[in-house]
């Protein structure tokens, strides 16, 4: 049946769905070029490129961007480590509480972010932990673990256990096996998971609002900027640049993971 053609109705529905997802983004792009800076007016009264240079010269953009990048990078690393460990443990054995662990991992993303945020904030207050870079990371890593975990656990499930045994059989100890067999085989899954985690962290507002104290990550900066506009198109420029800059990595990750899906699949 896969060789059949899709029906016209399906094609239209799918195209409409995609269109629905993209028109507002196009709008963001358009407003990055508008000449009107106080409010948004449709259609834009004129077009200009000046907001790009304005954005370039705004130190607060760079500060927020740099904070966001650092937070996302560190959170992703933490999530990669925790998620991989968890996936390894859960997929390799049937131990007591395995179910509980997988539920626990899913919980931070299954419960609304505001709950995670408030819980962490009140916990920080109770424990007298001042807000800092690390409190943001703490929040982000918590909900990023699940993305890495899901990707890794699926790959672990597909990578047959006999690969590990084959490696040990050929004389590699646990660490060598991890280095030479497990890691290369889950690498692309981790990459995909890591990318998602990074994206999730990079765009997070809800939890961050509660764990950031006075610092501004890029989304918080945007919230501030959107509500109290100085130069509204600047936020659009930032949003647009983020989309464009991430375009290639997303595509790259897609081709990377797709290629290895097939290789990993050969283990029957």
């Amino acid at each position, binding site marked *: 049946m896969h060789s059949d053609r899709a029906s016209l109705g399906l094609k239209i529905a799918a195209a409409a769905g995609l269109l629905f997802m993209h028109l507002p983004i196009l709008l963001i792009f358009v407003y990055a070029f508008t000449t009107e800076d106080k409010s948004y007016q449709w259609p834009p009264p004129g077009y200009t490129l000046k907001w790009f240079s304005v954005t370039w010269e705004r130190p607060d953009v760079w500060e927020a961007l740099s904070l966001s990048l650092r937070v996302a990078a560190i959170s992703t690393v933490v999530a990669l480590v925790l998620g991989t460990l968890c996936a390894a443990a859960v997929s390799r054995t049937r131990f007591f509480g395995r179910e509980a662990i997988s539920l626990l991992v899913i919980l931070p993303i299954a419960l609304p972010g505001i709950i995670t945020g408030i819980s962490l904030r009140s916990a920080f207050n109770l424990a007298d932990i001042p807000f800092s870079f690390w409190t943001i990371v703490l929040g982000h890593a918590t909900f990023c673990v699940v993305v890495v975990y899901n990707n890794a656990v699926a790959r672990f499930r597909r990578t047959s256990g006999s690969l590990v045994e*084959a*490696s040990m059989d050929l004389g590699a*100890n646990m660490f060598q096996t991890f280095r030479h067999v497990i890691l290369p085989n889950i690498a692309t899954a981790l990459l995909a998971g890591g990318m998602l985690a990074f994206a999730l962290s990079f765009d997070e507002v809800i939890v961050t609002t509660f764990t950031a104290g006075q610092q501004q990550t890029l989304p918080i900066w945007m919230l501030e900027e959107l509500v109290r506009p100085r130069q509204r198109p600047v936020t659009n420029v930032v949003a647009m640049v983020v989309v464009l800059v991430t375009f290639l990595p997303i595509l790259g990750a897609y081709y990377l993971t797709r290629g290895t899906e097939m290789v990993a699949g050969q283990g029957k």
Partner: protein
Amino acid sequence: MTTAIAFRQVSRHYGTVRAVDAVDLEIAEGEFFAMLGPSGSGKTTCLRLIAGFERPTAGEVEIFDKPSGAVPPYRRPVNTVFQDYALFPHLNVRDNVAYGLMIAGVARAERHRAAEEALSMVALPGYAARKPAALSGGQRQRVALARALVNKPKVLLLDEPLGALDLKLREQMQVELKSLQRQLGITFVFVTHDQSEALSMADRVAVFNEGQIQQIGCPQDIYDRPNTPFVADFVGSSNVLPPEMVERLTGKRASASLRPEALRLQADGYAAQVIEKAFLGAVTRLTLDIDGQKLAMLLPKGEEVPEKAATVHIGWDEDALHLMEQRDA
């Protein structure tokens, strides 16, 4: 003669499942040893106990007369060819084969040379740069073999290595494996559920059923003198005659096995009715009914094939009827 592998009352239970149950076994160095048995009879578990992926719940596996209890897989002089090959998908054929040597710290040039050598041993030179995904089943199997052989293990474990190949390729690989084993003098422990494979290749065969060894012996013994009805039935689909019938024929009350090829048309023999016939190429298999008992008979090519529902008269040599000890199968 050195004993390469010995099982001393080895059991491996999973909860209530007795995958391997009080098995005693000795495999001599240099032997080609086959483990034969139906699916789920514990063959793979035995191999895994030898390789060290599983630990016995009772008993002891000895490797070259030393207890292996605490020895991890990566320190056993044993290599495995896995049922699903377990080739590393991220490494090319050369690196797959050289993996064990890399781990052992052999220099790059040296191990590449050894890998090439092993590959030509399995008739796969020129495939070194391919990824496993680009190989056919038979080729993968041979890479898995080369990967194990390159480490010059003392014992090579093979878990149904030919299971996925088609008949033609399988027969060809059987011959190759056998001659490789002779040439290298390595102990082979070979798991299969295909009786003709076990019989044709092994020096000795252990027939497994439900975690226990039913019989150990050379192929001829297993085939001609099965210990139990299970062995008789499983190895070569022998006819198993029930004790009542045997009593009528010989006076002794015991089950007996009777090979289909031992039956022949014989004018003064027992009357039997043909209920099914199947042309198998070299022979024709008849299914006969003799006093309510079904018997299989192989008619060599050239003899005239009776029609379905016809009555034929059959007989067999006295000594073809092999009496068995009574044991549950």
